[in-house]
């Protein structure tokens, strides 16, 4: 019964998202897997703030895995904020960094 999907990092395929707000700067801390199943959750969180945000930071230190569906959410974010503010992706693990390099996305994000 899918009453409410538990975004628990303990489960194998889950994503825990926490959003920190500092003025018009939003930091998204992602913990777990960002894939087809979990990316709609992040998409919803991003859409919540995209109109107010002047700076968005995605902290991927605890992100184990990212799929193309996850990249799509980040692409939506960078296009959404384009012209009004900037977006930063930081603390990429090697595995996630590889995906960014492979898909060429490391060319279009500011990576710290």
């Amino acid at each position, binding site marked *: 019964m899918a009453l*409410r999907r538990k975004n628990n990092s303990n489960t*194998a395929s889950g994503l825990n998202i926490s959003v920190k707000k500092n003025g018009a700067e939003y930091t998204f801390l992602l913990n777990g897997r960002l894939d*087809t199943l979990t990316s709609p959750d992040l998409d919803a969180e991003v859409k919540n703030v995209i109109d107010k945000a002047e700076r968005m930071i995605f902290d991927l230190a605890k992100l184990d895995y990212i799929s*193309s569906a996850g*990249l*799509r959410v980040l*692409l*939506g974010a960078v296009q959404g904020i384009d012209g009004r503010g900037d977006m930063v992706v930081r603390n990429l693990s090697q595995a996630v960094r590889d995906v960014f390099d*492979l898909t060429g996305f490391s060319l279009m994000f500011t990576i710290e």
Partner: protein
Amino acid sequence: MVKKLKDFRLYGLIFTIASTAFIMLLSTPFFMEQRLQPYLFDAGVDSLGSLICAALFYGCMNQDGDGSRSFRILIIMVSACFAVNEVVRYTGGVPQSRTIFFILCFVSKLIDLAMILVFYLYVRAVLGFDGKYTKIADIIIPIVLAIQTLILLSNIFFPVTFSVNSDGVYQDTEIFMIEQVFLAVTAVLTTIKVIMVRISINQKAAILTFIFLPIIEYILLGATFGEGSQYGIVLMSLVIMYCVIFNDRSRKLAATQTELNMATEIQTSMLPSIFPPFPNRSEFDIYASMDPAKEVGGDFYDFFMIDDDHLGMVIADVSGKGVPAALFMMSSKILINDHAIIGGTPAEILERVNKLVYENNDANMFVTVWLGILEISTGKLTSASAGHEYPMINTNGKYEILKDVHGLAIGAMPISKYRNTEVTLKKGDSIFVYTDGVAEATDAENQLFGTDRTLEALNAVPEGSSQKEVLRCVRVAVDAFVKEAPQFDDLTMLGLKYKGPAAEE
């Protein structure tokens, strides 16, 4: 907001279950105590009824749509009525508990009124009431409800419609029928509207049962206050409504499923699927396969003769899954094919395609593409990658990763630059390209199959095998690795072996 709504649903379910448990526990004295035994039947109806309420609530818990919320509230109310009625019977006829008995009778009647109101709201939401008639109904109903509530409240001070005597026995007054005015008014208004509105006859009948079943029950049994079957009948009507709605939805769902299957068929039929595809070409052996994880996927492969000496090969992966990905895949495939035939190097072709795809891309979708063009007479393979996985190439008897230069996935940015990578295939050399479904196949422990295992599988293939056999071996290795874990991503592969230029005639 969404989460709150879901919480409400969860609490609703808990409530209906708790109500059932409560009624079942309270049924015990109905077996034991002499004075309660005449009500044993009613206690049974209450238990069964509240259990059905819980089941019904669970059934429509995740439904969204017009009136589904009102419908759930109705179920909760019926469940509450069962519970209250059970206590009403338990406390009735006992002088000591006459105050609590009075309060419960009062509450029960209050819920009745609320139930009628929610029923009206439900019908209103389902039928999308509007127009003059509804405006009148929207005025009349609250007024009658207010008067009715006042009459009910006045019972606290003076027995207008009912009273509880000193023995704790419920008594109607002579004008008790005025309690039913609200029901009558709402019933008439709703019935007229339901008959007028254009909906299927099934739906009409289902909604009207809420009004007419209780009336029939009243005529047949001459309902006395607090009788168990009263709410059983109301519940029955809810069950009928649910079944009709459910039936309608299933029919729609079946239609959607058929359309999805057709989409899969169309998609699959767009990929070259007759092997060998070019029976009169002896210079190369090519094979490709695709296994979508869902009904329709976003992966594709393609190959085609650009001219007599050039073979184009494509492997691509669209972000996301399902129908949107499939639609995006279709347009990308056609664009790549067209532009490859128009001409240019793979990098030039991808640049043009990227521009076109980006212009018509509102959904932030993108597609990673590997495009290779083989010059058949020389074995020169020129390729460009738009963010796609590294090809695996076998030029010295062993498959290795070919670290080609990567451009950005197609559709991500308005202008992207790509670079060509050139290798020359000798007789017997081969290349294997794939989508992330291969390297990212995951076992039950969440481990990735990985490029290393892919290479291992490729290198374990016996020499001299056909490309079909090569792909099958990789598939077997992936399957052996993931075991019971469900296939998460599409599994798409393409293999080519160069057999050298055709012998001169």
